[in-house]
């Protein structure tokens, strides 16, 4: 078990805090971090720490003992004088410095000499409510998973690291090809731990597709800009378009204006159990910023000859 922090720090109150202040701080933090309200994977462990700190500090007698003996107060027999204890700790500490296990009480901070703190507290949730509840299944947790359009298209495996109670833990997430924003990928039994052998909750990765310099994503459909020269748009052409599945030829029919969407069927994000999305190439007619002399002459000629009026109603 990782070393626990100071109970006052955990609750964010000064050592001089009144019982009222401790209660208020606990209620506030508990509401924020309760695993059914806060789905972040770290919330449950934070909630545990808060509950443990409150268990100790809410009772004036255990609080007094915690103040006198520090984090190891549970190991101290009831009738020990704080001064004597401090002297014993000092000599035990010297022993530790030489690499030896301290004798006597025989344990370092956080280690309760083979006793699990969970047992003392009656499990995370079992203890506070009293008896009769028995094992409690763990809560489901959620974490965000940002994917590129390419990753969502291809699917595959991705290793994701999350802060857990015992440091960073890395999860192998199987991404189905064609996953969309908002979809949840379930890792069964990887969520909050159940107490007393009750089943764990599930961990859900909620997919968010990151904004892409070229593709816009709507559901499974992809949109991509298709810049065309005025003569290409007027005369028609065939151009190469990048798609997540590789380069594709798009036929631009003659007389294509800006804003027209050319559809590439089923070239959007795949659908594991249905129809793939489409890829739409949106035409944008571009003109040269600076015309060469021959270009200018040709455009002037065109202007003189053409009767086309794009603003005619």
């Amino acid at each position, binding site marked *: 078990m990782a070393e626990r922090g100071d109970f006052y720090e955990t609750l964010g109150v000064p050592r001089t805090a009144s019982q009222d202040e401790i209660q208020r701080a606990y209620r506030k933090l508990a509401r924020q971090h309760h695993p*059914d*309200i806060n789905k972040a994977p770290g919330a449950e462990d934070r909630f545990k720490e808060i509950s443990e700190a409150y268990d100790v500090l809410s009772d004036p007698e255990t609080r007094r003992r915690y103040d006198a003996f520090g984090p190891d107060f549970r190991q101290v027999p009831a009738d020990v004088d704080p001064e004597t204890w401090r002297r014993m700790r000092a000599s035990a500490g010297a022993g530790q410095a030489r690499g030896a296990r301290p004798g006597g009480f025989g344990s370092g901070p956080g280690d309760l000499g083979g006793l699990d703190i969970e047992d003392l507290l009656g499990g995370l949730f079992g203890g*506070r409510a009293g008896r009769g509840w028995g094992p409690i299944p763990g809560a489901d947790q959620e974490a965000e998973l940002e994917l590129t359009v390419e990753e969502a298209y291809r699917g595959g495996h991705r290793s994701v690291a999350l802060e857990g109670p015992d440091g960073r833990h890395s999860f192998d997430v199987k991404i189905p090809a064609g996953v969309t*924003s908002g979809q949840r990928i379930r890792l069964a039994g990887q969520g909050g731990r159940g107490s007393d052998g009750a*089943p764990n909750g599930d961990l859900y990765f909620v997919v*968010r597709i990151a904004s892409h310099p070229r593709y816009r994503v709507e559901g499974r459909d992809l949109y991509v800009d298709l810049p065309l020269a005025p003569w290409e748009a007027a005369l028609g052409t065939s151009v190469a378009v990048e798609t997540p599945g590789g380069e594709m030829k798009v036929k631009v029919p003659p007389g294509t204006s800006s804003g027209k969407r050319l559809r590439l069927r089923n070239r959007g994000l795949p659908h594991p159990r249905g129809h793939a999305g489409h890829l739409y190439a949106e035409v944008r007619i571009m003109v040269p910023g600076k015309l060469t002399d021959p270009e200018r002459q040709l455009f002037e000629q065109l202007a003189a000859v053409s009767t086309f009026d794009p603003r005619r109603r």
Partner: protein
Amino acid sequence: MGYALIRPVRLNLEAFARATGTHPELIRRLVALGLLDADRDAAGELWFAPSQVAAMGRVQRLRAGFGLNYAAIGLVCDLLDRIAVLEAALRISRR
């Protein structure tokens, strides 16, 4: 000790009590209070969907974490479910 849930279609009261580690009487009460969903068959026996194991866990955690009474647990569960629906809708509209 864990109890393997081999994805039965539904659990009877006894199996549900075993899976959640709770007393059948408590479960009956929670069903009566509308905190758990259960079907009653012709013989009057209660049947639970596997998803209700997680629902039971939530009831237990809320009870244990906040000392809520059953009416308040029902309210909190309803609100949490509504928030989950709203958050899912928000995720879809934001993409």
